């Protein structure tokens, strides 16, 4: 099961993973867009939207990857998610505390933290909306849970000075 091989359609210039489009963007755009959504909708609403969008997008990608190996264990599936997270450039995640009943994910590196700090310095609130949604989706898909049973938040964020980002995922 590989996550680091994207398909490139050289006639139409499309990158895909499974049946989903993948596009290159850099930290400037990713963080500027994140802040734009905050400006447009307010922080609370922007945070909810981006976590939900991340869950939706991630779930569809992981579902197609997991479907290729139906015998994979929960641990195998989380390993695949970690590999996807890292190969896509989102950061390095440690998931040993994550179980089918919830738990925590530690981000040793986070693209969103590095990008935010590079552009604007220390943040005033946690910035890893996309990673929160990603790991909620990864847990839901790996444990066979409906997404509605999950709640997630970033307990501490390196953009505010923490040594690493701690994501907390609760199964209701």
């Amino acid at each position, binding site marked *: 099961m590989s996550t680091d091989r994207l398909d490139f359609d050289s006639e139409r210039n499309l990158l895909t993973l499974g049946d989903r489009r993948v596009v290159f963007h850099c930290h400037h755009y*990713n963080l500027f867009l994140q802040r734009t959504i905050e400006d447009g909708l307010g922080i609370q609403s922007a945070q909810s939207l981006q976590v939900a969008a991340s869950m939706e997008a991630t779930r569809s990608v992981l579902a197609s990857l997991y479907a290729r190996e139906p015998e994979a264990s929960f641990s195998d599936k989380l390993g695949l998610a970690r590999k996807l997270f*890292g190969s896509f450039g989102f950061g390095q995640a440690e998931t040993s505390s994550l179980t089918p009943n919830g738990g925590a994910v530690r981000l040793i590196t986070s*693209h969103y933290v*590095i990008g935010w700090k590079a552009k604007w310095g220390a943040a005033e609130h946690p910035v890893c909306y996309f990673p929160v949604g990603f790991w909620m989706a990864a847990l839901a898909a790996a444990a066979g849970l409906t997404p509605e049973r999950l709640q997630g938040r970033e307990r501490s964020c390196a953009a505010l000075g923490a040594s690493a980002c701690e994501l907390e995922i609760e199964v209701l």
Partner: protein
Amino acid sequence: MAIDERKIIEAVAGLGITGNDEGLIPAFGLYLTQHMADYYNRISFAMARRLEKTPELVDDARTLLVEAGHSCAFNTFGGIMKSAEWDAVVRPMLGCREDWVHGMTAVVNAFGWGRWKVRDLVPHHRLVVAVQDSYEAQGWLRDYPLSDRPRCYLANGGVAGLMNLLYVGDITTGPELSDAYYKQVFRSSDRFTSTEVLCRATGDPMCLFIAQRLP
């Protein structure tokens, strides 16, 4: 024209851009991601649709999202055009300033954004770019009814930004891509703005962008 688009695309694809041991992709002086188009589309379109419920905010939604495209062009295109990778692969093909436009669109065509093609380029005055399979328009069509307005915010900002980098600023001299330089270029009274005159999201056969100087 000396630009060999296929060679550029193959060279960028051949860089093997993927996360390192830290899960990061430092390239072109930037931190890149291979990201899910669905994510960008959902957050952009959801914000636009919510703001558009208030008629007075319709233009604000577009302005905000296109400004994100300007930021992308300035930093991403600008960073790429100052990079060692650009110097190695693209710069040997550059014969004139206009070649920088063609070289950058060739690089864009390795980014999965769809097929960008320069239809017309009048130096210092106008750029027309056609895009097939825009991920923004394609994403809109999949999830929403036909739109009554164009939806390719990122591409729209990108086309204007490319002209601003070359004909308002001067990326060929390798300027520092600072906030001050951004304001100097993208707030200039003779800056370029782009209009998406055709969009797949509205039912057109392709997306078409025209960048011109402010009237």
